[in-house]
């Protein structure tokens, strides 16, 4: 039996291969996500059976749980998952481009840029402009920061190590900028700001959910199409050029995708650290290095990670609500150290 399925259009303009194993993994993860969504929505200050959740969501229920499920929990659980998907995909793309296992939007400093732009928007323009523009500013902040980091790292070429180091430096500055904005802001209390900075989907609304899914919907197919060139890029720039990939252009577009995903995630949930670092590594274990499926799997795993972090944060410490970012960083930072240990002879 063949390990892959091959699709070709009649005139062979379009063709692609799917690994059966990847299909299976993606299917299982998607199923797990849907189940997590239904069961996870049931957990909270009072438990609601999965069947009741399903009935309420479908509109077949008797309305008992409408408020709790539809207004409070479902948007939050959905948002956690979508944010995780965005971060997981963003990390997978970044690790592919930079060819460095330690790359992720937060380590490189991109999420810091999104955060400072988002907080700056609220502080400086909060009264003047509609809050609906916040994601726009966060994404713009992420893009500009990424551009600055890339330019500063450029010195007859960009080496991954310099990129990471410059990212750490830029993070220090954006972090200071964020604190500065929060302190002069009339809109935040220190506690609120602190929770936002840690990364939390607390108080999620449908507006947040509706902000992030269209972006995912647009970027997902684009990224998967571009991912084909990432497979070639894995062999190195020269070989990829030989295979007919316009390396620099594709790399730039992919970077833009990654930054957009990270920026939109920050704009709705703050800086949830290390999810974008862990997801691609777990995904690589499951489906190998082929980028099309890796991207999807990494996204799904990121979604489950943030979902789990949020679920633990809101159920285990009732009545307190611990930000999801605490758990992703608590698990992610040791994971980062482990990666550093494994790659100790590379750096």
């Amino acid at each position, binding site marked *: 039996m063949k390990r892959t399925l091959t699709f070709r259009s009649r005139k062979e303009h379009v063709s692609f291969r799917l690994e059966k194993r990847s299909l299976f993994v993606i299917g299982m993860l998607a199923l797990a996500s849907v189940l997590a969504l239904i069961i996870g929505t049931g957990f909270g200050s009072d438990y609601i059976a999965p069947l009741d959740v399903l009935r309420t969501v479908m509109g077949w229920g008797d309305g008992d749980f409408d408020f709790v499920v539809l207004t409070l929990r479902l948007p939050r659980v959905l948002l956690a998952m979508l944010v995780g998907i965005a971060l997981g995909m963003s990390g997978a793309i970044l690790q592919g481009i930079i060819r460095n296992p330690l790359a992720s939007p937060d380590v490189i400093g991109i999420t810091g840029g999104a955060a400072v732009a988002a907080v700056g928007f609220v502080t400086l323009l909060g009264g003047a402009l509609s809050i609906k523009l916040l994601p726009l500013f966060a994404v713009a902040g992420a893009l500009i920061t990424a551009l600055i980091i890339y330019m500063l790292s450029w010195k007859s070429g960009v080496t991954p190590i310099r990129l990471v180091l410059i990212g750490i430096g*830029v993070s*220090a500055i954006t972090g200071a900028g964020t604190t*500065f904005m929060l302190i002069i802001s009339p809109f935040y209390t220190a*506690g609120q700001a602190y929770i936002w900075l840690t990364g939390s989907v607390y108080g999620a609304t449908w507006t947040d959910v509706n902000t992030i899914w269209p972006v995912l919907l647009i970027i997902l197919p684009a990224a998967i199409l571009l991912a084909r060139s990432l497979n070639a890029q894995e062999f190195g720039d020269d070989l990829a050029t030989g295979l007919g990939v316009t390396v620099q252009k594709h790399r730039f577009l992919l970077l833009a995708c990654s930054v957009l995903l990270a920026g939109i995630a920050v704009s709705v949930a703050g800086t949830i650290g290390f999810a974008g670092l862990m997801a691609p590594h777990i995904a690589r274990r499951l489906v190998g290095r082929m980028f099309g499926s890796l991207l999807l799997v990494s996204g799904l795993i990121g979604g489950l990670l943030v979902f789990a972090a949020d679920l633990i944060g809101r159920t285990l410490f009732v009545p307190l609500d611990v930000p999801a970012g*605490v758990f992703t960083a608590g698990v992610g930072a040791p994971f980062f150290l482990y990666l550093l240990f494994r790659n100790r002879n590379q*750096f």
Partner: protein
Amino acid sequence: MNARYYGRKSEPMFPLFRQGKSRLAGLLVLLLLLILAAIASMIYGRTSITFAVAIQAFTHYDHQSVAHVVLHTERLPRTIIAAVVGAALAVAGAMMQALTRNPLASPSVFGINAGAIFCIVIGVVVLSVDSLTTLMWFGFAGAAISAVIVYLLGSIGRDGLTPIKIVLAGTAMTALFSSFTQAVLVLDGTGLQDVLFWMTGSVSGRSLEMLYPVLPYMAIAVIIALSMGRAINLLLTGDDIARGMGQNVLVVKLLMGLVTVLLAGGAVSVAGSVGLVGLVVPHLMRALVGNDYRWLVPYSLLGGGILLLLADVTARLVIMPSELPLGVVTALIGGPFFIYIARKGVTRL
């Protein structure tokens, strides 16, 4: 790629002060600058005070005068604390840069600040410690734990202690300790506001009583650092050569580690996490006296005080009547500096 990145020998430096006499003169100039910065720190702020009034406050203290009271209860403590904390962080940075042979080394970059903060927050929030002396020991412990872990993680592997590995380990430890701190603070919730301002680094609203328990340990650490100049110079020529010259390399390194932990841990327990002072000052001072640690340590001592005093005055003046955490100002100065060094190429010191 890595080889190219690390391998380049650092360019020969031509420090400003090369001879013993001019170096001594430079030290005196720095001392003068430190005094000027201290005076600026006494005078400028929300209530501007003239120099004459400031003098009067010490010669003829009048408890009815607002200016005099402000000087005694607010300006004087914070000036002294800023100078001491700045000096401590700068010397700690100089020690770490020699110990790890890494130009990016500093207490904040290597996660030492985050470790000290985490332990102090545990002490305050979980164990309800309110004695400043006990909290100081928590700070020392946190600094030591973090320093040991980062150093070990940085030195594993075939190439031993490489600059990039230790920086990455430091970044990860910072993230880890910050997330633990966040968890503790969010779970507790009370007093978040106070702890937050302290955490981002600030010298305002602190009384001298907070400095007293730490001061003796800092003084011992500084004396050790000052007396180790020759030994550090020898160590910088390489472990093997130093050993060949009869140096007990392990003892020297352990002493340097001890100095770092005492100074950084002490500074954090007084002023919170004031980042990147320890990175910037030793490099600036190297431009003045070169990499000779007999001179670099005293220069950094004074330079750190000057930098932090000026940063604190800036923090007060930028958004009057409110003020910035000191950590924000130093990060805005130190961040670009970090980038500059990273761009130049991280060569072993």
